[in-house]
């Protein structure tokens, strides 16, 4: 290959990485690229070629991988990369000003690298620290370290370069965790990871012991069925049905996957769970793996959550040493282990089939469904895939029984629920509630009410969600109650906007998010997210064109009706709901809050 002779790159640091990961073949591609990049700062062609050869992946496909994932680079970047979140929650706290300050510091435009090669500044999609923005994800040093900082201001963003100036503690995300219930989160929000022995001390791992000693897989699934637990990732699909489908599907091996690619703007519940109490989630996953007869668990954690990755790794080590993972765990016939996979900057990989593709070493393109993951999942094998919060519910259901779980919710929405409240409230944070309380209770009682003005709007369900008006505050938070009000719970993100905010600017940010995160596979989303962004951009600038309202509707409904996956199908959701509530926002000259 001519590329290898064009430059001299020392491949020595790559050798041990390849020795360890090459036996995985193509499935080892993303971890290998991520590790290679910690040594080189980017992926030089010679390194990519060597990885391709060692893993048996076509050269073009390796390049396609690097091109797909936002955290991978195929050309040199600054020694420090500052990724500043400017999505709605951080934007309300001055994300744009922090971005400008970072650009001024480096003397570059957004996306550029300073002339001395010291700093690259990027605009980042939501980093999942919405309760403590402005957040900035920083890569620095050799080998490259990655840390997400919170509470960053225009004055302090410079302190993040090379990690110098201040300790990380100054920027640490102190997650506020509260609510009416304390079933999922008793050990979260304490600023540290709960160790296995602490979790055990309050009854942790008892559910797994109970399952392994006295329940058949079918009994576990039956218990889950009676609990009526619905998935907490956004789609609200019955958890038991996924488990039963995978358990009954022919084919071996089977896989259990924890979807921890939390990237929905405004959502940070999974991060809080994994950083604070990872053993609870992992216990739920081991129970699920037992129920479906899986031989391996993968946990795919968002690449921008380095602390969660680190803490899950530490928890896994403890679980292995204590005999909860490995061969014939706890003296049973069941053997299981967990492999951690890091994402690399792609919201779409939270879509279950795109996540599988990513683990398989491919670009995160969603697959056409059917077939569904229960029969044709990871590596084409029967797979159950669940959200982090869903699995955190499982130990309680097993320990206390489905009836106790049902009592925590309403007739159609069982159990506790985590809600991520951000934006213009007194106490942004993570709130654990029982289904059935009203939005008003959440905003006024738990989060302390609206700050900076009167309530203008709520965005429920993140970027893929829908807007609610102050008139809808008494809507009960249940799947059915929200649906009846034309709303959707989605991932459980609730962003609050006071009446001083220009919602057109918020809409532009949501549109930019989708345009940035569309994978580009199907036409409605690939083209529609871009066209939608262009229209909302000029609207936010106060320069809409005649016909933009109809244009937005045609683009929005085409994406909703005809896109291949959930990303495109919900990319216009917030926009269409805003058009319904506030039609005057979309017509010329209505600079309501500018």
């Amino acid at each position: 290959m001519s590329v290898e002779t064009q430059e001299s790159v020392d491949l020595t640091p790559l050798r041990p990485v390849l020795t360890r990961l090459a036996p995985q073949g193509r499935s080892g591609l993303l971890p290998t690229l991520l590790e290679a990049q910690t040594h080189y700062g980017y992926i030089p062609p010679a390194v990519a070629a060597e990885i391709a050869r060692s893993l048996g992946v076509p050269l073009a496909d390796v390049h396609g991988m690097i091109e797909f994932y936002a955290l991978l680079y195929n050309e040199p970047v600054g020694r420090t990369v500052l990724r500043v979140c400017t999505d709605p929650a951080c934007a309300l706290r001055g994300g744009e000003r922090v971005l400008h300050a970072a650009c001024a510091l480096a003397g570059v435009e957004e996306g550029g690298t300073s002339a001395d090669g010291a700093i690259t500044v990027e605009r980042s999609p939501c980093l999942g620290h919405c309760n403590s923005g402005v957040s900035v994800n920083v890569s620095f040093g050799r080998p490259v370290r990655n840390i997400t900082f919170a509470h960053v201001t225009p004055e302090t963003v410079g302190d993040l370069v090379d990690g110098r100036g201040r300790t990380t503690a100054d920027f640490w995300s102190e997650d506020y965790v509260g609510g009416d219930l304390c079933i999922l989160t008793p050990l979260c929000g304490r600023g540290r990871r709960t160790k296995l022995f602490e979790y055990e001390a309050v009854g942790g791992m008892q559910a797994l012991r109970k399952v392994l000693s006295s329940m058949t897989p079918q009994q576990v699934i039956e218990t889950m069925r009676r609990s009526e637990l619905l998935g907490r990732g956004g789609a609200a699909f019955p958890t038991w049905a996924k488990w039963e489908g995978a358990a009954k599907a022919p084919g071996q091996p089977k896989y259990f996957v924890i979807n921890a690619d939390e990237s929905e703007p405004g959502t940070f519940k999974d991060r809080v769970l994994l950083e604070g109490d990872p053993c609870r989630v992992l216990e739920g996953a081991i129970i699920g793996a037992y129920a479906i007869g899986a031989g391996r668990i993968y946990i795919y954690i968002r690449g921008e959550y380095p602390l969660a990755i680190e803490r899950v790794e530490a928890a896994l080590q403890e679980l292995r040493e204590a005999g909860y993972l490995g061969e014939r765990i706890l003296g049973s016939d069941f053997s299981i282990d967990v492999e951690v996979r890091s994402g690399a900057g792609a919201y779409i990989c939270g879509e279950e089939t795109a996540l599988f593709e990513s683990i398989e070493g491919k670009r995160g393109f969603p697959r056409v469904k059917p077939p569904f993951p229960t029969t044709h999942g990871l590596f084409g094998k029967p797979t159950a895939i669940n959200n982090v919060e869903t699995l955190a519910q499982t130990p309680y259901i097993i320990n206390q029984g489905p009836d106790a779980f049902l009592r925590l919710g309403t007739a159609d929405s069982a159990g506790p629920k985590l809600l991520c409240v951000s934006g213009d409230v007194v106490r942004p944070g993570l709130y654990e509630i029982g289904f059935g309380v009203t939005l008003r209770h959440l905003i006024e009682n738990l989060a302390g009410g609206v700050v900076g003005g009167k309530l203008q709007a709520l965005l429920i369900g993140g970027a893929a969600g829908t807007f609610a008006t102050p008139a809808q505050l008494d809507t009960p938070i249940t799947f059915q109650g929200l649906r009846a009000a034309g709303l959707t719970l989605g991932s459980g993100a609730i962003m609050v906007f006071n009446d001083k905010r220009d919602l057109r600017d918020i809409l532009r940010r949501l549109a930019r998010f989708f345009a940035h995160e569309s994978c580009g596979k199907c036409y409605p989303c690939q083209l529609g997210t871009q066209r939608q962004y262009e229209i909302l951009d000029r609207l936010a600038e106060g320069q809409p064109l005649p016909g933009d309202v109809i244009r937005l509707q045609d683009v929005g409904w085409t994406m909703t009706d005809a896109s291949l996956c959930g990303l495109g199908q919900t990319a216009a959701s917030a926009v269409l709901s805003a058009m319904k509530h506030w039609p005057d926002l979309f017509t010329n000259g209505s600079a309501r809050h500018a």
Partner: protein
Amino acid sequence: MPEVTLTIDGRTVTAPEGTTILKAAEAIGIHIPTICYHEACTANAICRMCVVEVEKQRLLQPACVVQVREGMVVHTRSERVERSRRTILEMLDSAVDLSDAPEIQAQMAEYNVNHNRFPGAERRTPPVIDDNPMYVRDYAKCILCWRCVQVCAEDAQYTFALSFDGRGFRTQIGTFFDLPMPETTCVFCGQCVGVCPTGALKPRREWLLEQGKTPDEILQMSRTARRKSRRAQR
């Protein structure tokens, strides 16, 4: 093969299990438009031009991959379907040079496409890549149907010279670190050129003729190129 009976646009159809809606409709003379679909390629339901309305389904369904089922009621020209198809064509038209895509032009005429539907829209306009003697790549005309990538890989040639640069709207077909085609694994089988529906991939001679070169000039050019390469080898 067991058969299923369904209704398409009010007409009863019987088709073998496993048949796609696209094929079942075709069998009774109902034409469903497609862009990315090609008989020789794996259908990936990318372009969504073939979406149809299936009763009791919340979303429109891509006819190229969705299989017929007993009792299914399909509408191939409902209002929702028409809006999606027209909008997809208008968005495509606003992004890509479709001047060499006669099939899509015919569809745009059929769906009354407004050619200025998205004023001020960003277009994809990368420069022409003329890096080998066999074919040129004009990705300003590329609609990302994936056919070339697929025939280069498991759908035909197992050459794996092509993948994708970027993502979303900024996706483009590319090679390893954008190397010129002769430095890739390309074997110049020409299958990608054969399946390209928009002239984004074109035999170099055809392209040179379009540029106004005469056959004699083209012959002269290739002789010169051969002499040069022989001299370089010596």
